[in-house]
């Protein structure tokens, strides 16, 4: 961060365009800087609006004190007053929003109502667990989808292609928790009893220390995200295989296997990145039901618990985390797809 000043003087080192067309190098760099600044500005603006919505939904609509005290609410007015003061509930709504937002910007996420622990302490390990889950799913999703798509495209119209098409289409719409329940009842109860149905961790342990408990949540999420990606990639591949330039490659006598690998496959790069990012963004929310199902100690299950307990500082923090990750993933996907599409690259510079 100490070199920030020197960085500001020269345009940000933008990767691809500079190297490709040196004549336009400077303007390409400037176009990138402008694009990134514009998108970052929009992302910040979006996050700010998101914070407004989250705040209004969680604190303006319900009465948190009633939620915390439950039955005691009616009988102990002094407890009510105490909690109201501690949570600044007697301030005006804009003031409360400001207290919350400025805390958020300083990295202070507030204190959990349910057990009085700072929220950051409470959710730190859970964010790590969920991130690990999403990472593992992504690492399996991309190669598996590509593999299925290539397999289907190579045996186009044949039984393998048809089987892949039917299965992916059937699975594409099934809700993730439904898949999860079916997997549980198949693999850890009645039929086979091989995998744990819930993730049980000793206190303080992280999920990667118990890999067996990860299998079912990962499998559920993989089944939820792979079908769509595999279908898109297959149709891109098939479309490319029909195009003139691939036909020319065939006519030159290049073997089909090589045609696929050298000529058709590179064309799936952009859809792979775009749809993977889309699925990744979905996963950020998709973990909620799956984590709850498997009792997985991540942000999804924590969010459900916090909603149930009326622990609104935790709800606010987790909602902001989820929305922020969602926005960043989409931003990165847009940037990558411009970088990887030569046409979009030139359009942006021009």
């Amino acid at each position, binding site marked *: 961060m100490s070199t920030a000043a020197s960085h500001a003087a020269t345009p940000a080192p933008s990767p691809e365009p500079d190297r490709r067309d040196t004549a336009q190098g400077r303007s390409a760099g400037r176009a990138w800087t402008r694009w990134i600044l514009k998108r970052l500005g929009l992302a910040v603006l979006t996050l700010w609006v998101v914070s407004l919505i989250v705040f209004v939904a969680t604190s303006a609509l319900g009465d948190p004190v009633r939620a915390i005290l439950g039955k005691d609410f009616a009988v102990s007015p002094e407890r009510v007053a105490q909690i109201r003061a501690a949570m600044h509930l007697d301030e005006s709504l804009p003031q409360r929003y400001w207290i919350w937002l400025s805390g958020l910007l300083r990295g202070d996420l507030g204190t959990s109502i349910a057990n009085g622990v700072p929220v950051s302490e409470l959710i730190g390990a859970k964010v790590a667990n969920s991130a690990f889950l999403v990472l593992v799913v992504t690492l399996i999703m991309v190669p598996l989808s590509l593999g299925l798509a290539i397999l289907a495209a190579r045996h186009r119209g044949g039984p393998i292609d048809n089987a892949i098409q039917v299965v992916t289409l059937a699975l594409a719409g099934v*809700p993730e928790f439904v898949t999860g329940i079916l997997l549980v009842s198949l693999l850890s109860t009645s039929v086979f009893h091989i995998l744990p149905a819930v993730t049980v961790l000793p206190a303080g342990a992280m999920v990667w220390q118990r890999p067996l408990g990860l299998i079912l949540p990962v499998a559920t999420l993989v089944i939820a995200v792979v079908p769509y990606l595999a279908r898109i990639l297959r149709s891109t591949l098939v479309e490319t295989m029909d195009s003139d330039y691939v036909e020319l490659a065939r006519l030159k006598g290049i073997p089909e296997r090589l045609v696929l690998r050298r000529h058709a496959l590179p064309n799936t790069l952009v859809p792979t990145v775009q749809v993977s990012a889309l699925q990744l963004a979905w996963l950020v929310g998709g973990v909620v039901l799956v984590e709850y199902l498997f009792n997985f100690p991540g942000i999804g299950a924590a969010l459900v618990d916090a909603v149930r307990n009326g622990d609104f500082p935790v709800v606010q923090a987790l909602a902001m985390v989820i929305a922020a990750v969602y926005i960043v993933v989409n931003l990165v996907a847009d940037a990558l797809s411009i970088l990887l599409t030569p046409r979009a690259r030139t359009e942006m510079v021009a």
Partner: protein
Amino acid sequence: MNRLAGLARDPKIVIGSAITLLVVLLGVLGPLLAPHGEFDIVGRPFTHEGSFLGTDYLGQDVLSRVLYGGRSILLMSILATALGMVVGVTYGVLAAYAGGWVDELLMRTNDVLLAFPQILVALLVLSAVRQPSWWVIVLFVGLAHAPRVARVARGVALTYVRRDFVAAAQAVGEKRWRIVATELGPNLVVPLLAEAGLRLTYSIGLIAGIGFLGFAADPGAADWGQMTNENRLGLLVQPWGVLAPVLVIALFTIGTNLIADALGSHAAQGDS
């Protein structure tokens, strides 16, 4: 007309409609076929007493509960889808037709709304309203769909707004709303039906998911989503309490998704 005939012959549409219709009939006529009442205790909890699917967490008949449990969730899913489609299509088509800075403003606002995963919208509302009425669920599931529908509708409308027939209608002096309704409308039907099929698939998933998390509109009532939550503890001893509703939901989503996929590929063909 040719296109419609082609649709009716597509095996995906035929199979998808058959499955969807079967589940809808099960949901609608179920209560008439049920061997026991919705709340009748027919035996000890989580046993194989009652009819062939056994009993649930209270000893109620699982088969009867499944037959009773479809009406509310199907109706809510359809209403939520309809709401999301109406709001989203209106918004998206208006943006496409207005163009310029209005379009920019509307779509940027839409992008902000898209920053919320649907399940997050649901949980935020549930944190404010602990015991949602059925229409609250319909409202937020529908509104959570709207920004996604709007983006698709705008994209589809944009491909037509610049076409000659719209320009011709404008030149003749047709009113704007008439152009949208009579010239744009028919061209949007197939792609938007595809979107509606997809949204219906997600609606039932989301509404069942809310029930699965234990935030149902009417606790205790038979409902496919809620049943998965009620009977979870018995999964090891009496899996049918959870499996039966889950299988019906899976079947329904497979059916609607088949229809949506077939309509989507027809829309893509009609475009070229």
